[in-house]
């Protein structure tokens, strides 16, 4: 497209007073013929002025020097024309108080520093706009497949399939057992989910199974497992196998990279593998079935009490200290005091449910009906924490199971020992109804021991509502163990992805496939794959059904987005995608390794293989590439580099040092805008460029800035660490690692490594920004001007 630029400068909102607009206009390069100043550019007259030039003068690239791109975007929406906003208002005039003692003796009363800032931004905006290309959405050559594979045939999986089908799509449910329904089929009753929340309900699973089996859009495959998922959203090729068997299409186990090594996990034999050799993850099974998106609903497994000793601590609070000294923990059955394993009538809530589902509640020791049952929610020993992986579900289950005891025998008694009864929301009503039952005794209490006494059991507890130290004789004890997400121990997905077969870094969430984002519970690091049910969080049956509906929407949304050629969250509706210039690729694999979404694979030589429908358009690959071969149409090495080069760096003015700020557009840039809105002033010698993510910052921009003579570079981005706020998961963290390396390079050039720094900021910490910038300027003044200035 031949570009025709129009530059429009606004004089409103104080711009006309704080800036010498006439002088500013003269800074527009002569080649740009259309340049106009308007008193209020966002007024209907101002907008008409621009539209008129678009119609009559052929302007197709509009540079608007006015306010931030975050505001009045709907007024200045000239799509499909390219629009570049030069932020003179929030970024210059509102955020910089003129120095009253520095006003010129004659001419417009304008602070030179502020004027220079505006001039730079205008030049930068024009330079950037010249390098931006119009965007064509990515359309894969093959048709986007709209079938959805649901892994797991329990309540969640079947519900997801039904929701998918009701929205008009086909679903295939994969279940490894001989029949679908999961644990719900073993349950006797369900807790209530509607007002008045009092009576136990018949399980809904039977109805769900029936509906799913009858739905013509749903195919159910039992006794099936996924061996390999190859491809990308809209284009997944899945190989199936019988459970427990080996398939030649099994994903080879990833080889752990050695400490500090950068090589990605490579399967054995993959090096010499050819595309039709299954040992190579790039090999595609000719008999594979195609799907568009995947819902992972493989649920939970009971927390194994005996394994507790191998994985001490976490939810256990302070484990008894003497135990540590006496013997290795592996041999220390932590729940010995509760008699689990030693006494047959001490069972888990899972075993109890299965028994209740099958019929009467009987003691395992002698088969006699249990006339009294104690439910232990918290293993005690000095901590008020429930069993590991417990949740509000375990509280509800104990209440429900106490009711079973009473249903079976009106004379039976049930005791529930808890520390915190977690019946949230309107489930409180269920708790209250249980309290009304005179055969159910609920008490806070620290359970000290469970022991055999004749043919019965004795439970000892301290600090209870029934007394300080009590002993209760019961027939059975039920331990309220938690639900472990299956993703904790098994990648499950078996993705043929270079980054490995499952989701990444789930240990941050104790194995749950949690999104980490409070606002965005379905955010996923594997585009096109959405989790629901108890792999997501511990959820009750009704919540699982709701969660399944949400995951079904996300799966459908992903297909529709892939079909439209746009990105999914958080850059939803973005049509750009990374374009690789492979001729110059050196197979360094950095992009493949660093993409937080595993969007890239690589061939046997290490050349990246793009999967555009997996891509989230963050630009982390662009930031990673030492050869600078990755670019987006509207965001490229050249477009940002040109902006950097457009900054005017004074050569010998020690006062006017120049610092480049690369600011994350998601959080840091809005925070800078708010500084402007609140008229918080920051140093006028910085020049700010918003970036998609700090992870997209390519080192060459820093080199450009330094060789241009700029004195420092400050990267401002999201917080990283376990509670990362980076919307692209790893972007700000990767940038930090790269900056460290840059530091070393700077030293080798006899430049101080302090010149390049990164700070972490949350969007609401705008008030700290002026101080943080001042601090950095101080550092730069300390090290002095860039010695390369003027070269």
């Amino acid at each position, binding site marked *: 497209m031949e570009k025709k630029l129009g530059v429009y400068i606004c004089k409103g909102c104080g711009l006309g007073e704080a800036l010498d607009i006439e002088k500013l206009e003269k800074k527009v390069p002569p080649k740009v013929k259309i340049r106009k100043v308007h008193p209020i550019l966002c007024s209907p007259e101002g907008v008409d002025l621009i539209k008129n030039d678009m119609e009559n003068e052929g302007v197709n690239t509009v540079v608007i020097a006015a306010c931030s791109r975050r505001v009045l975007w709907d007024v200045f929406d000239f799509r499909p024309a390219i629009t570049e906003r030069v932020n003179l208002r929030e970024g210059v005039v509102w955020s910089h108080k003129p120095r009253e003692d520095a006003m010129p003796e004659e001419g417009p009363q304008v602070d030179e520093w502020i004027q220079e800032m505006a001039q730079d931004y205008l030049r930068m905006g024009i330079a950037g706009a010249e390098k931006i290309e119009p965007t064509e959405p990515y359309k894969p050559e093959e048709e986007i497949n709209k079938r959805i594979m649901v892994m797991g045939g329990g309540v969640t999986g079947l519900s997801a399939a039904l929701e998918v089908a009701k929205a008009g799509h086909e679903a295939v449910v994969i279940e490894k057992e001989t029949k679908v329904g999961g644990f719900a089929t073993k349950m006797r009753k369900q807790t209530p989910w509607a007002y008045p929340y009092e009576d136990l309900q018949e399980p809904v699973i039977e109805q769900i199974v029936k509906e799913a089996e009858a739905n013509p859009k749903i195919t159910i495959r039992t006794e099936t497992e996924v061996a390999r998922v190859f491809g990308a959203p809209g284009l997944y090729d899945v190989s199936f196998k019988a459970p427990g068997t080996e398939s030649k299409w099994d994903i080879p186990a990833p080889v752990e990279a050695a400490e500090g090594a950068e090589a990605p996990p490579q399967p054995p034999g993959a090096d010499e593998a050819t595309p039709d050799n299954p040992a190579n993850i790039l090999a595609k099974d000719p008999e594979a079935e195609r799907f568009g998106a995947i819902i992972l609903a493989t649920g939970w497994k009971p927390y194994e009490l005996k394994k507790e000793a191998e994985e001490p601590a976490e939810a256990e609070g302070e484990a008894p200290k003497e135990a540590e000294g006496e013997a290795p923990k592996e041999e220390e059955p932590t729940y010995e005091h509760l008699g689990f394993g030693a006494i047959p009538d001490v069972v888990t809530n899972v075993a109890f449910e299965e028994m209740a589902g099958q019929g009467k509640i009987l003691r395992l020791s002698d088969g006699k009906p249990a006339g009294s049952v104690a439910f232990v929610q918290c293993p005690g020993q000095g901590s008020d924490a429930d069993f590991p992986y417990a949740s509000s579900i375990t509280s509800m289950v104990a209440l429900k199971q106490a009711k079973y005891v009473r249903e079976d025998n009106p004379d039976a008694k049930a005791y529930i020992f808890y520390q915190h009864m977690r019946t949230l929301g*309107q489930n409180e009503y269920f708790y209250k109804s249980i309290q009304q039952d005179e055969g159910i005794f609920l008490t806070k209490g620290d359970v000290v021991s469970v022991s055999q006494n004749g043919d019965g059991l004795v439970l000892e507890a301290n600090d209870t509502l029934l007394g300080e130290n009590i002993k209760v004789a019961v027939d059975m004890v039920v331990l309220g163990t938690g639900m472990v997400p299956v993703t904790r121990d098994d990648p499950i997905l078996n993705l043929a992805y270079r980054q490995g077969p499952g989701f990444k870094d789930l240990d941050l969430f104790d194995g749950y496939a949690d999104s980490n984002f409070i606002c965005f519970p379905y955010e996923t690091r594997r585009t096109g794959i959405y989790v629901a049910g108890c792999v997501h969080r511990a959820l009750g049956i009704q919540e699982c059904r709701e969660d399944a509906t949400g995951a079904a929407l996300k799966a459908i949304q992903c297909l529709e987005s892939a079909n439209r050629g746009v990105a999914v969250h958080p850059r939803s509706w973005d049509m750009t995608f990374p374009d690789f210039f492979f001729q110059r690729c050196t197979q360094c694999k950095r992009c493949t390794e660093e993409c937080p979404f595993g969007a890239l694979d690589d061939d046997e030589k290490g050349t990246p293989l793009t999967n555009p429908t997996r891509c989230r358009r963050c630009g982390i690959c662009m930031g990673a590439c030492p050869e600078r071969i990755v670019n987006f149409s509207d965001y490229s090495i050249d477009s940002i580099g040109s902006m950097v080069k457009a900054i005017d760096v004074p050569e010998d003015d020690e006062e006017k040092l120049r610092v480049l700020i690369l600011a994350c557009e998601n959080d840091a840039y809005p925070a800078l805008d708010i500084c402007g809105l609140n008229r918080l002033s920051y140093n006028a010698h910085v020049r700010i460029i918003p970036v998609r993510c700090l992870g997209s910052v390519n080192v060459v921009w820093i080199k450009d800035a330094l060789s241009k003579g700029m004195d420092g570079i400050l990267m401002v981005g999201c917080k990283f660490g376990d509670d990362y706020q980076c919307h692209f998961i790893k972007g700000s963290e990767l940038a930090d690692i790269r900056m460290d390396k840059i530091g070393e390079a700077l030293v080798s050039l006899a430049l101080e490594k302090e010149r390049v720094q990164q700070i972490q900021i949350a969007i609401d910490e705008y008030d700290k920004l002026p101080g943080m910038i001042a601090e950095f300027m101080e550092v730069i003044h300390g090290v002095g001007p860039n010695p390369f200035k003027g070269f």
Partner: protein
Amino acid sequence: MTEEQRAEDPIKTGSILVVGGGISGLTAALEAAEVGYEVFLVEKEPSLGGRVAQLRYYFPKLCPPTCGLEINFRRIKENPKIHYFTLAEVQSVSGSPGSYDVTVKLNPRYVNEKCTCCGECEKACMAKIPNAFNFDMDSTKGAYLPHEMAFPMRYVISPKILGTDDAKRCVEACQYDAIDLEMQPKTMNLKVGAVIFATGWKPYDASKIDNLGFQYRNVVTNMMMERLAAPNGPTSGKISRPSDNMGISRIAFVQCAGSRDENHLPYCSYICCMASLKQATYVREQYPEAQIYIFYIDIRAPGQRYEKFYKKIKEDENIFLIKGKVAEVQEDPSSRNITVVAENAVTGEKIQETVDMAVLATGMVPTTADTKLPGDVRCDPDGFVVSDLAQGGVFATGCAAKPLDVTSSNQHATGVALKAIQTLVSR
């Protein structure tokens, strides 16, 4: 298109109406629009974001809600399928699944689309009005921006200054002809296929809880505490005693203030335990030595991630978790110190702690508890909206449906977006 342009030209069919622009409504609207459906999002306040915009942080991550809102607002900007209206109220909904006639009243903002947000009207206006966003703990001018992250970023003229000299001063101060005091309410008719009510919640009125002393200046609610801790709040984020702005050395949190109480809200409000644990971190951040007392019945940390957060809080030696329901809150009139009286749930022993201030963990009341929604909508006795999933067409999500936290609300809202889409697909 701007809000005004869209109101002139609403799209008529095959669309979804979402009522309420808080986090649940935003989520439902955006998720449906990103599948490709036309969505109308109607919010009665002058800006989107709802209740969460008032929070300093989300638990358990301690991250600011404006971070996610910024992304959501950008999703709105990018997506041609979503049409939002502020200061808008749904007046009637009639019809059947797949085909509803809706009338929406667009209340006057007295500021039109020419507003540049320059702030001159605010400077010119002299009258101050209580700032509801900060629970009246401070005031705004009669011409104001709802808050600094408001979306859309446009000023509002309070109807309270209409007809005064202040209103004239605002008009004169505006160089952009953006203030229109003659603006009248307008009615917009829509035809939609499905309706999602995401009308949210409000804090339970603490003044109804006689024994908890909300009349005392140094007793605040948990939502007020969020504003006190927020950098853009009435104290610029400094947590201090309301009576004298002095620092805090001892503070008490009173859990279940109204919730789990037959005389007030019989249900549990889901979020208050986690909210108080979170607010304990706000206090700790500013007062490393402060003693923090949390009086509770049960700590309801539902699930692994929340349990971990609770565990971390327990490690703080100056946070005292006391199992006991607060019976009474008293004030010493001279020092304005607050004494919290509780009964230990296990031992029955009476506990008293005198503190600088107390925070009542008040619960959530669905907006629909006392405001009837238009159309054929059924509520349970607590006022939560019951969705008829079998019939489809009209749904509720977020805290209009049940007490929920933000993550669960958004999970729910994403699912409900699909239920709405199914209503359209099946017809």
